[in-house]
């Protein structure tokens, strides 16, 4: 067994273990933490495949940003696990049905012709796949890429528009007004004669 293979097995074992724990952990924060671990180890496996750009982006986007927000929300919720567990046996058959359907679909996809192709030759080590990815993304796939970007922007704006609400009577600072203030608005210089001290008259 080469060293690389050894590392691969370690990372795969950790990924599998943490993926199982995401589902089985009792505390949702622990589940989120195990999801982070699963992301991180799969990123490491991708780096082993010499897809360092994808691996790093997985960590950067999912672990560094998405999961932070995820944890944020979970930490603020007061989750009662008993209520969550209620009706587990009742929904069990439906759950199993969904699981079987998803598994069958995945097997069908993996067995299909698109995935049944010879493993391509590994690129030489000194080639940068970041550069290669960028080149192909901005030439061959420029329209799909740009359209995806526009859809994301629309989604962001829609999400903000849906959640933005203005409440009346909230006492908070208006930063624009605070910045626009000038000295003249706050300070008044008055000229007056000096007054005599008391008892000096």
């Amino acid at each position, binding site marked *: 067994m080469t060293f690389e293979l050894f590392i691969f097995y370690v990372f795969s074992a950790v990924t599998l273990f943490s993926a199982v724990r995401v589902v089985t952990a009792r505390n949702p924060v622990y589940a989120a933490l195990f999801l982070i671990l699963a992301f991180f180890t799969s990123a490491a496996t991708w780096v082993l495949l010499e897809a360092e*750009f994808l691996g790093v982006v997985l960590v*950067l986007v999912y672990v*560094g940003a998405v999961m932070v*927000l995820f944890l944020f929300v979970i930490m603020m919720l007061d989750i009662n696990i008993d209520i969550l567990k209620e009706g587990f046996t009742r929904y069990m058959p439906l759950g199993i049905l969904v699981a079987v359907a998803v598994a069958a679909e995945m097997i069908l996809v993996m067995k299909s012709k698109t995935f049944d192709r010879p493993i391509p030759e590994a690129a030489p080590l000194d080639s940068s796949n970041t550069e290669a990815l960028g080149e192909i993304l901005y030439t061959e796939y420029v329209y799909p890429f740009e359209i995806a970007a526009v859809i994301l922007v629309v989604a962001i704006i829609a999400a903000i528009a849906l959640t933005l609400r203005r409440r009346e009577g909230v006492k908070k600072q208006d930063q624009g007004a605070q910045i626009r203030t000038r000295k003249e608005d706050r300070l008044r210089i008055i000229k007056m004669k000096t007054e005599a001290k008391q008892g000096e008259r």
Partner: protein
Amino acid sequence: MDTLTTFLNSFLPEGLATLIVILLKIIAILLPLILAVAYTTFAERKIIGYMQSRMGPNRVGPKGWLQPIADTVKLMFKEIITPTRSSKVVFFIAPMLALAPALAVWSVIPFWDGGVLANVNAGLLLILAINSLDVFGIILAGWASNSKYAILSSLRVGAQVVSYEIAMGFALVGVLMVSGSLNLTEIVRAQSGGLFGWNVWPLFGLFVVFFISGVAETNRAPFDVAEGESEIVAGFHVEYSGMAFALFFLAEYASMILISTLTALLFFGGWLSPFGTSMDDIPVLGFLMGDGFHWLLLKAMFFLFCYLWFRATFPRYRYDQIMRLGWKILIPVTLVWIFGEGVAIALGWQPWL
């Protein structure tokens, strides 16, 4: 280093020798780093002391020079208290999660031409990715402490770090557009040619944005709402004591040194001398004035000094002001700058060639 590898190879199996050499390199990077962290705390107290007309620590050792050692010893022997009804495992993992990324990033930092542990192609991206893991330590510490102050602080940090990461990422995009590479060694090499070859001049706005968001990312004053003493006691580490508390400190200062070094590498030519190669022929002076590690050290130390200077100078930002600065000012500035830079590169204008 090569002679050591061949020497070890003569009696050890090949993989083991490589491993030992890598471990030695890691120790050679981390030991000076931790020493630097210890003395940064000393420098901070001294410098801020003088800025406020005080003496700073001057009792332990000559002129107080043993103060950081005394602090470490004290922290090591303090009892570590776990709050009741806290989640113990996460409580102890959190400081490690804060420290590990702050140290791991140093693996891709080049100290001189070729003086790097892992010369990774996507080095800049890797730094950004590992740096984004820093925040977990703080968020989890806040949650695991089972304390209202701590969780308030960790919510503040989460929002702040995620916001400023965007501005920081955009500033890095500008740098890699100029140098055409994500490899840090290549980025520094692209800045050769003396003082005016450095990236600061064409990318001045991005440099300012990068450094400001770097200060915000490390939760230092004036962006230290995470530990706003007047509002939430000490923030995410209220419940920590002893060495667990010290690890947070270690992580914070290691990240500070990292941001300073990165600023020096990305915008100020790293180990390159401001005089270029003009003085290389002079015997002794040429060595000092030529490229070398000492220039990187000098530049990084300057930015580290700026960190302390900021802390002594600026009052703390209000939370909504932090958000406004990040989203409404820094991000638009970077976007406009990158657009201008793109146009300039497309037209082939000089400073960006």
